[in-house]
């Protein structure tokens, strides 16, 4: 039974400190302890007036070196007693640069002890409520006589502090329309525990992102994004606005991870977000990004390091992998539940797929001829429900004004017909995409053995610091695509070992989603920059190559077909090859995937053509191990068997 201690004092407005215990039943002793804790925070002058405010230097040192203090001040310890920070706003610090943890602690405590004035919002307690909260609860004697947190009216009135106790980490799937979103996005959602909407539409969304000027040039955007050319900060807004952008405009699926935090930890996190609200950070797309900053929030409340110090990149999915590791280590579930939140496009596609074929055909006709007179009473309730939802999507993407008007009339009639049926359709909502944390890790070590028709055997070892492959279920990151970077492959054949290839970058989008509109094709493309030894006119030498291909893809159930026109270039002597590629990718089972590709390529003089077929299949044993088999037919046949280890 949940115990709810809630002091209904509107004058004090201290709801956020009233410790609404909602987890486990409390023993009488714990309840008394927590009540005392509350009293300490509410009436600090009573409990601390008898403490000696002059702290011994050793006490300052002890507090300043506490990991939580380091995290609250965003100061990282470096060699020779130096500290560095990613924070750009001098206002975040109360001491003078070069910033040091102990000087910052002394300045903070001194500022906390200042008397409240008319403009309480500028008081250090209101500017740094998380520091205050932590010091007050962990080292109460350190503060001495200070004003209470109740002087901070704006903080107390912040809806996030009032809205209840549910905190969700929301993972937004990858989006190829923006390079900065290719690997997904991570944000926090603060809302009620008994939320009427699984999407948290009334929640507050806390987002971390770079401040990009409008109309920024794409190349500049990429370069500045990678090179730290943008400032970034946290922002808070009504979550439904973001939900609309992601689910409707960008067709991105989401997963909400409801965090299992104690009330004290939740308060600390929210208070820290409050004190970071006007704070500018350095932004680096590959590492110091949304995932990094939100992981820092988790580090603060979990009191352990989860961020990798020596890695070139950090992605949203890494946060979920870290949570799993913590869960396993602590034997404590950090996540209460994971909810899959499909995009509008996916919801519509699923609803459409559940309709009988005859109904699908009639709807397809309506979609291509959106006129109200084509809709009549014979349309069933599920068909009308589909049309009502689909019409929103159709009107949003339609450019032609007369077609939009037609859609409006059609929608109006759908609404009327549906209202008059007065039936409530049983909701079918059993579709779930597995959450991103369940996907494969992206650092790969691969050992392969290859047997050629001629009898020659080769062993290969490759290492990829980052690899999302087409055969992976990417679980929310880079959906329908492939991204590999810095892949080194070594081969050993006939006792000769050598570097076979370096894939600097390979990127592709070849999988499509099942489309409602008949014959609707998605854009497909791939490209890469690599060094390898396979070039027809001069085999054996490691040379730079570039390839690019564009075409179309169409999805049908768990299978996607694609066709591409491809151009390859040997960058050493600028010889060109052009070709036509067709292929398919299928992910029929959770652990099993397969692909096929055939191509024909010609050199620039069209003197030689090269026909190639490849068939690959992969079986995932678990998140770390997978087996792969492939058969290639080029000038001769070859078979390859591989084992992958991922971490």
């Amino acid at each position, binding site marked *: 039974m949940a115990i709810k201690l809630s002091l209904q004092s509107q004058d004090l407005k201290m709801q956020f400190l009233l410790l609404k215990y909602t987890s486990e039943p409390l023993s009488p002793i714990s309840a008394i302890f927590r009540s005392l804790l509350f009293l300490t925070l509410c009436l600090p002058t009573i409990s601390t007036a008898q403490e000696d405010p002059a702290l011994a230097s050793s006490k300052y040192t002890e507090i300043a070196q506490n990991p939580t203090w380091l995290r609250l001040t965003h100061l990282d310890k470096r060699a020779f007693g130096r500290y560095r920070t990613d924070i750009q706003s001098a206002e975040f610090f109360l001491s003078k640069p070069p910033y040091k943890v102990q000087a910052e602690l002394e300045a903070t405590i001194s500022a906390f002890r200042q008397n409240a004035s008319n403009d309480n919002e500028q008081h250090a307690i209101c500017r740094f409520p998380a520091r205050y909260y932590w010091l007050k609860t962990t080292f109460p004697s350190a503060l001495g006589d200070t004003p209470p947190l109740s002087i901070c009216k704006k903080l107390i009135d912040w809806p996030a502090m009032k809205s209840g106790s549910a905190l969700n980490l929301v993972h937004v799937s990858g989006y190829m329309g923006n390079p900065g979103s290719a690997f997904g996005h991570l944000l926090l959602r603060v809302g009620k525990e008994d939320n009427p909407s699984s999407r948290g539409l*009334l929640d507050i969304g806390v987002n971390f992102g770079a401040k990009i000027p409008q109309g920024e040039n794409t190349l500049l955007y990429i370069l500045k994004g990678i090179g730290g050319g943008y400032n970034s900060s946290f922002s808070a807004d009504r979550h439904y*606005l973001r939900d609309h952008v992601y689910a409707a405009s960008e067709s991105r699926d989401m997963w909400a991870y409801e965090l299992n935090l104690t009330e004290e930890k939740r308060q600390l996190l929210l208070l820290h977000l409050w004190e970071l609200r006007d704070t500018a950070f350095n932004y680096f797309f590959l590492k110091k990004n949304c995932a990094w900053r939100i992981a820092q929030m988790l580090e603060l409340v979990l009191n352990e390091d989860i961020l990798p110090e020596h890695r070139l990149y950090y992605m949203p999915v890494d946060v979920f992998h870290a949570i799993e590791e913590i869960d396993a280590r602590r034997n404590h579930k950090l996540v209460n539940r994971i909810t899959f939140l499909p995009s509008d496009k996916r919801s519509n596609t699923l609803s459409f797929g559940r309709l009988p074929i005859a109904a699908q055909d009639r709807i397809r006709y309506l979609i291509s001829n959106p006129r109200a007179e084509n809709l009549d009473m014979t349309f069933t309730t599920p068909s009308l429900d589909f049309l009502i939802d689909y019409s929103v999507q159709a009107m949003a993407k339609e450019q032609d004004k007369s077609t939009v008007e037609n859609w409006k009339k059609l929608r109006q009639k759908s609404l009327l017909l549906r209202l008059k049926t007065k039936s409530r359709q049983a909701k079918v909502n059993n579709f779930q995409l597995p959450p991103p944390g369940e996907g494969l890790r992206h650092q790969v070590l691969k050992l392969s053995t290859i047997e050629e028709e001629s009898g020659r055997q080769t062993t290969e070892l490759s290492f990829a610091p980052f690899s999302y492959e087409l055969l992976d279920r990417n679980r929310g990151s880079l959906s329908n695509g492939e991204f590999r970077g810095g892949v080194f492959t070594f081969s050993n054949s006939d006792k000769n070992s050598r570097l076979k290839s370096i894939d600097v970058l390979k990127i592709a989008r070849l999988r499509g989603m099942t489309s409602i509109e008949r014959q609707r094709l998605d854009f497909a493309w791939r490209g890469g920059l690599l060094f390898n030894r396979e070039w027809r006119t001069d085999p054996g030498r490691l040379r730079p190559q570039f390839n690019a291909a564009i075409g179309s893809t169409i999805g049908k159930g768990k299978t996607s077909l694609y066709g591409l026109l491809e151009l390859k270039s040997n960058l050493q002597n600028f010889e060109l090859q052009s070709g036509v590629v067709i292929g398919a990718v299928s992910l029929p089972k959770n652990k099993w995937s397969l692909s096929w590709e055939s191509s024909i390529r010609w050199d620039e003089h069209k003197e030689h053509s090269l026909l190639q077929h490849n068939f690959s299949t992969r079986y995932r044993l678990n998140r770390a191990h997978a087996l792969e088999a492939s058969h290639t037919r080029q000038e001769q046949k070859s078979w390859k068997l591989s084992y992958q280890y991922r971490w």
Partner: protein
Amino acid sequence: MRIIKSTLTAAILVAAMPLTSHAEGSSREFADVYSECGLGGMIFSGESDSNVILAIISNVTWDLGTTAHSSNVSSAENCITRGSTSALFIMENLPQIEGDIAKGEGEHLAAAVSSFGCESQLQSLTSELQIKTIESIDTGVYAEFTELEKSAQIFDTISSSCTI
């Protein structure tokens, strides 16, 4: 043209409904919230892209009242506690709420009702909204309604029928 039409409609709507003083948000009418909070200035000011709305709501959620002076909101603190959240939510999610009313259920409708604190009356309010919409459609006025008027009908129906 559409913006002018919306602004005119809003002006007529506000003028037609005299402002009344209500104690609590749930009993306020859309016109009150609309005029007091300057929602028309926000949504139909001519800068109708979502960034304008987002910026205003960000002000409301982070700072609640202090930075709102620069964004046409007469008193965000007053508004946030007295119905502007519900009004904005309905205006911003109108197509989805409209669809949910027709279907008799849905996340957006549930959230709209919840924003008034009337979760427990979701079913009866849904029926009430369905009846009002059918009436408007049958009398032919619904097709002529602007988005603002549709929002007002939903807001006022929930506001007047919710007994919390």
